[in-house]
């Protein structure tokens, strides 16, 4: 299936869970905020949230800023 991750197209195997995606990106355990199609997914739901074809996912973190 095809998704858009942080603005870039990406192909994932069908049935991928959000927690798996985060693990594969090496972001497990990091302080993140995740949105799927503009809806915030709480950390506690990563393991039970399936990624669907066409999803637009944003994975965000804190950086230096004023």
């Amino acid at each position: 299936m095809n998704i858009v991750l942080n603005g870039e197209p990406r192909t994932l195997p069908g049935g991928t869970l959000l927690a798996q995606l985060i693990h594969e990106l090496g972001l497990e355990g990091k302080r993140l905020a995740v949105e799927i199609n503009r809806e915030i997914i709480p950390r506690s739901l990563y393991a039970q949230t399936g990624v669907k074809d066409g999803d637009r996912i944003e994975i965000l973190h804190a950086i230096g800023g004023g």
Partner: protein
Amino acid sequence: MTDPLIIAGKSYNSRLLTGTGKYKDLEETRLATEASGAEIITVAIRRTNIGQKPGEPNVLDVLPPSKYTLLPNTAGCYNVDDAVRTCRLARELLGGHDLVKLEVLGDEKTLFPDVTATLEAARILVKDGFKVMVYTNDDPIMAKRLEEIGCVAVMPLAAPIGSGLGIRNPYNILTIIENAKVPILVDAGVGTASDAAIAMELGCDGILMNTAIACAKNPVLMASAMNKAVQAGREAFLAGRVPRKRFASASSPIDGLFF
């Protein structure tokens, strides 16, 4: 002397708040932040760099929430939706943390706030349970409106963000301070230590700055200077300055002159 800054019911010893942007690297960010004495530090919320060194340290690794009060900002937001969305993401990111710095910008050249959008976003965020510290211009009426709708601190600019032009309109800042029942912090425009002292001497409750420290030739030394300037300015405000007089007033007594 205990003279805490109280924001949303929480007490802070330092009246200097610092941004964490524009530094050379995270080590410089850490050293300058420590030298500034700041307890509240701003961060921005951005996309993670997918596929690029996932093990690289993050600003929160060197400035941890256990040590600092984080103030996520809405920098880069030019409309209400983006600003509200950013604050909600920051709350999720920081595990329910609800203190935010709201800024809704109106124009890329000046980075002046869009005050009508700022007011609208502030209303939504306050209703949603956020404690909003709000960046605004030096307009006493708008500052009052933002206080009335429940912002926990109002932060007028002294000059455009990153300009280093200093306190351009001290009388408006003074009027904002005199009218306010919430802390007033100068946010943006400070260029050097004397600017910080002037703002504090006016009676500001605190100052938030980033560029003046991060873009100084020696950021760590400037952070130390700002720390002292904010404290000196505060003490001078509390002490009460002498009135300005046009002519001299001798400091040694006339009585006892022997010639």
